[in-house]
């Protein structure tokens, strides 16, 4: 796997998404690119605002939304203490970045692959879609709460067949869940692959369908992290180790396995649905 480095990177710009009058909740942060040798889609970085912060001592994990020789793009939601500070960054500001971290989302060139994203969970799929060797085998269902222009949906839709589903009501949500199940069943039949990224309740739903329909499914977890490098053991998740790491196409669902506490930051953040306890 790739070898992470720690560097100081410069803010190139910060673009608010969506044109609501108020302060933007979703923003794309463009940084000078770290001197990475290689990265795989689904990996993440830790960002830390430089200086002393009484309020937040750790860095924060963010999916690599896009990386090019010119920039590293993070797409984030201003929701808490650090992300709200990040929303105030200005071009020229310098922040600490370490990465690329974690394992990658599975890439299988010729397998029909379904991407399921909930809200900010769209972030890693941008890099995934842009680097996939056969994007025509990808399709995406994207559930979102705010208007579509709040998310980097267009840059994804350029590359792959992606359908947005705005969730404003309970009915919207039920419809989206039903659709996800249908699409996962299709992929089960086609011996396809499912990749899901979004909030934990969303991942739980996907996991249920994955087990029910026996479709190989990877879940990108969002655990609270300290170090991001596997040392502090603050981000563990229970994983059934004896289940083969990459299940065969007929999707064995593990039962009665012994669970181990594995670090989400180094053994994940992408876990097979049949192995991980959410």
């Amino acid at each position, binding site marked *: 796997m790739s*070898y*992470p*480095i*720690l560097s100081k990177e410069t803010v190139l710009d910060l673009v608010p998404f969506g044109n609501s009058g108020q302060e933007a909740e979703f923003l794309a942060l463009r940084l000078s690119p770290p001197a990475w040798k290689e990265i795989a889609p689904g990996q993440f970085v830790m960002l*830390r605002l430089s200086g002393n912060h*009484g*309020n*937040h*001592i*750790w*860095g924060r994990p963010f999916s690599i939304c896009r990386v090019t020789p010119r920039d590293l793009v993070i797409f984030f939601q201003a929701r808490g203490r650090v992300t709200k500070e990040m929303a105030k960054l200005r071009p020229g500001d310098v922040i*600490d970045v*370490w990465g690329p971290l974690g394992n990658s989302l599975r890439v299988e060139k010729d397998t029909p692959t379904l991407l399921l994203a909930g809200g900010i969970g769209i972030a890693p799929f941008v890099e995934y879609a842009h680097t996939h060797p056969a994007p025509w085998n990808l399709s995406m269902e994207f559930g979102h709460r705010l208007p579509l222009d709040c998310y980097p949906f267009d840059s994804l839709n350029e590359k792959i067949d992606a359908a947005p589903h705005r969730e404003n009501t309970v009915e919207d949500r039920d419809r989206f869940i039903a659709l996800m199940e249908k699409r996962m069943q299709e992929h089960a039949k086609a011996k396809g692959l499912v990749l899901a990224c979004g909030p934990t309740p969303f991942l739980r739903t996907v996991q249920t369908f994955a087990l029910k329909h026996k479709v190989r499914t990877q879940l990108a977890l969002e*655990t*609270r992290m*300290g*170090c*991001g*490098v*596997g*040392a*502090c*053991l*603050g*981000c*563990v*998740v229970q994983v059934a180790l004896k289940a083969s790491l990459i299940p065969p196409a007929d999707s064995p669902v593990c039962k009665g396995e012994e669970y*181990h*506490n594995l670090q989400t930051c*180094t053994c994940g953040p992408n876990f097979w649905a049949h192995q991980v306890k959410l």
Partner: protein
Amino acid sequence: MGKQRITLSGNGRTLVLNNPVLTASGTFGYGLEYTPFGNLASLGGIVAKGLSLLPRQGNPMPRIAETPSGMLNAVGLQNCGFDEFVKRKLPKLPHKDVPVIVNLYATSPAEFAELAGKLAATEGIAALEVNISCPNVKEGGSSFGQSATMAAKVTEAVVNASGTLPVLVKLSPNVTSITEIAKACEGAGATALSCINTVTGMGVDLQSKRPLLANVIGGLSGPAIKPIALRCVWEVTRAVSIPVIGIGGISTPEDVLEFILVGASAVQVGTANIALPDAAFRIAEALPHTMHKYGISSLDELRGGLKI
């Protein structure tokens, strides 16, 4: 400046460190996690994650939380156990170039002795560090470190079982008199004292009305506790004659020198490694320069030289 080798001698055993900046147990994994961020051999020493005889899965999640200028943890000593450590971790560490110190966790003096004996028979370990903040399972679960008698018993058990291996004892600040415990450990044969472990604390989330840690109570670390740690090191170094390793909130080379000024012989960097993965390397590297800046020509000269 150049050579900064530090010799810790006490009760007839000696540990030689590359320089005064070590890493603190539990904040630096098994050291291997940090190889991308610096050269392990540039550190004074590496203290591994608390090790028990058998693997332990630790506490349920959540296990860590941020607090003002600090953090709480209740990892619960998750670790890979002795066998796995010796088979898969230790061989990968550059133990010829940097002292590897194993932090011990057990629930009775006998278990401590057993683990210490096995470690003493293992190649590549420079010293043991006894975590006396473990619960004393036999005697009701309060920690060994909170009673001078029990602290001495555990120290003695490890010292007797470990041949000539230096034995550091890691003191808990959660006591009425840390000097009393320190003297008991010195009397029981400790080579040096590590000072301090985390301060007991807790946090809650108002939204969910739940504790921030599944274990409710956890250990506070980071810059917030630096004043407490400095005070403990100051008190302990004046009460014992074995060397003391200062720990608590160190995140700059200035912090290192502050601990040495109050009497420490070396230090461990903990939470700072979690905040930024090159912290210990950066601090060790910058130390000579920082000494120069403050006109400090040698650590021996600085040590305990607080003017009062």
